[in-house]
């Protein structure tokens, strides 16, 4: 039982690092945002394994839920701006 928890922790920690690297290195912004959200989700599972469900809930709700949504929201805004700029450029 104990060794299984250790293995799970190691796998989760490795996955967190991999996903964080993906989030930094990728060129596509939606993938980067999703990967950043996944980092938070893995972290919250780690918190549950470490017997801290309160922290895990905060991490899941804010770290991987609200922040991801907010980033997408802003991304949509910024993209819209980019489109408008391009259209204005065409008219010029």
């Amino acid at each position: 039982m104990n060794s299984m928890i250790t293995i799970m922790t190691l796998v989760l920690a490795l996955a967190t690092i991999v996903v964080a690297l993906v989030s930094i290195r990728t060129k596509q912004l939606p993938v980067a945002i999703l990967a950043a959200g996944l980092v938070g989700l893995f972290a919250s599972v780690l918190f549950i394994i470490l017997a801290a469900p309160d922290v895990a809930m905060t991490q899941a709700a804010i770290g991987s839920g609200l922040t991801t949504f907010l980033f997408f929201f802003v991304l949509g805004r910024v993209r819209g701006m980019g489109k408008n700029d391009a259209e204005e450029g065409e008219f010029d």
Partner: protein
Amino acid sequence: MIKRLIVLLLMLVLGTIFWQLLSAYQPDTELNLTGRYYADHTADDLGAANVVTAIIVTYRGLDTLGEVTVLFLSAAIVGLVLASGRQGEKQRQQLTPVGELLTIGMRLLVPLFMLLGVYIFVNGHLTPGGGFQGGAVIASGVLLTLLVDPVKHFSHRLIAIIESLSGFFYVSLGAMGLLLAGGFLDNRILPLGELGHLFSAGAIPLIYSLIGLKVGAEFSSMLIDFSETEAP
């Protein structure tokens, strides 16, 4: 080249520090003095089944008041900065309609989100979670509504009233602890009740519900401010 060398050197130093921390790490076999006090006395003194909640709301209640204040400050600053770019009536035709899946899903999920958020903060003294988590869940319900209908009008006045009233009553309950019980934010102003029941732990459920409402209102007002701001 030099830049890379400096980065490498920095990582090496950090690695050494962390390695030393890790190699000297020994897990505690028992709780330390403060932790043991909390674990032993929470159920008898405060009547809260969730020790974490008892620490957050009562033992370290002043810190929580500070956290709520910081959150309020950031929400106020977001509102202040974005107020200049607030738009009047945005034309509905400009927006591309969101899919049917999202619309129906929103109608189904938002009441459940709200219910879950309220459940989390009302049961903060019994189960994991509390005001901050519940408030964040409520705010995600608001966010889902905004994703479906970005021009939906939310009453800023209502949110402001909820936010200020819960802040006011939170501090008032704290001050009542000063008068009626052991100190500021003491939960024993109300009967402690039976351990593990919904109406127990004195003022903790009340205080955590107020925190939940306040945090939910603050997050929601921030999200609505973001949504209502005109793209420059």
